[in-house]
């Protein structure tokens, strides 16, 4: 029996989220994690556009992608600026 056969669904979710670094996101890794999740949504949206006629799921994926991009932009805009070398 393989490791995945022995896993319960709850254990599987824990492992997937842990491996993706999403159970407890480190403060300095938010931007990177948003980028990772955006990539997953983009891949799925591409699949939906190519093979799936479920308009609602497509719209939902597109909206989630928009939310992630919006959050990313706001976080980047609000991020503390590094010190200007000329001020040092």
């Amino acid at each position: 029996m393989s490791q995945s056969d022995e896993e319960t669904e709850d254990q599987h979710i824990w492992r997937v989220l842990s491996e993706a670094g999403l159970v407890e996101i480190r403060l300095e890794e938010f931007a990177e994690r948003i980028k990772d999740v955006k990539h997953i949504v983009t891949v799925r949206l591409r699949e939906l556009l190519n093979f799936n006629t479920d308009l609602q799921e497509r719209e939902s994926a597109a909206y989630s992608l928009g939310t992630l991009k919006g959050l990313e932009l706001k976080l980047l805009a609000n991020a503390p600026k590094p010190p200007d070398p000329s001020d040092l």
Partner: protein
Amino acid sequence: MQSTAKQLRSEANWPPEEGEVISFKSSTGSEIGILNEVHWGLVWRDFILEDGRVIPEHRISGCPQPKVWRKMNEVTDREREECEERLLSMAAAGMDPHKRDQPFWAELNQYLAYTYLRFKQAGRKVQDTER
């Protein structure tokens, strides 16, 4: 610490009740706080303390194993949309998600975990059916 706070919970009673003193892991070690409310997020339960901090269930001492997660299909479209609206509002208001255990940090954490699971699993199901 409030004198009315109940004492630390016993293993048999989970989740703890409002007003109980709970112990949890933090970045600096172990801390305690008074529980104000427990609510389900998109993936896991959050324990909201009286001082406003939001602690995910898996960091609370005595959290039963295996950990319990919400099924993706239990989350309604409306619930997800409301979460997205709250996150964008918090970001637009200039709130900082880099403040650990604060509401924006907690909600963004759950939203990213939920969105990852949702689309990762959906993509995997497509691959499985294509085999």
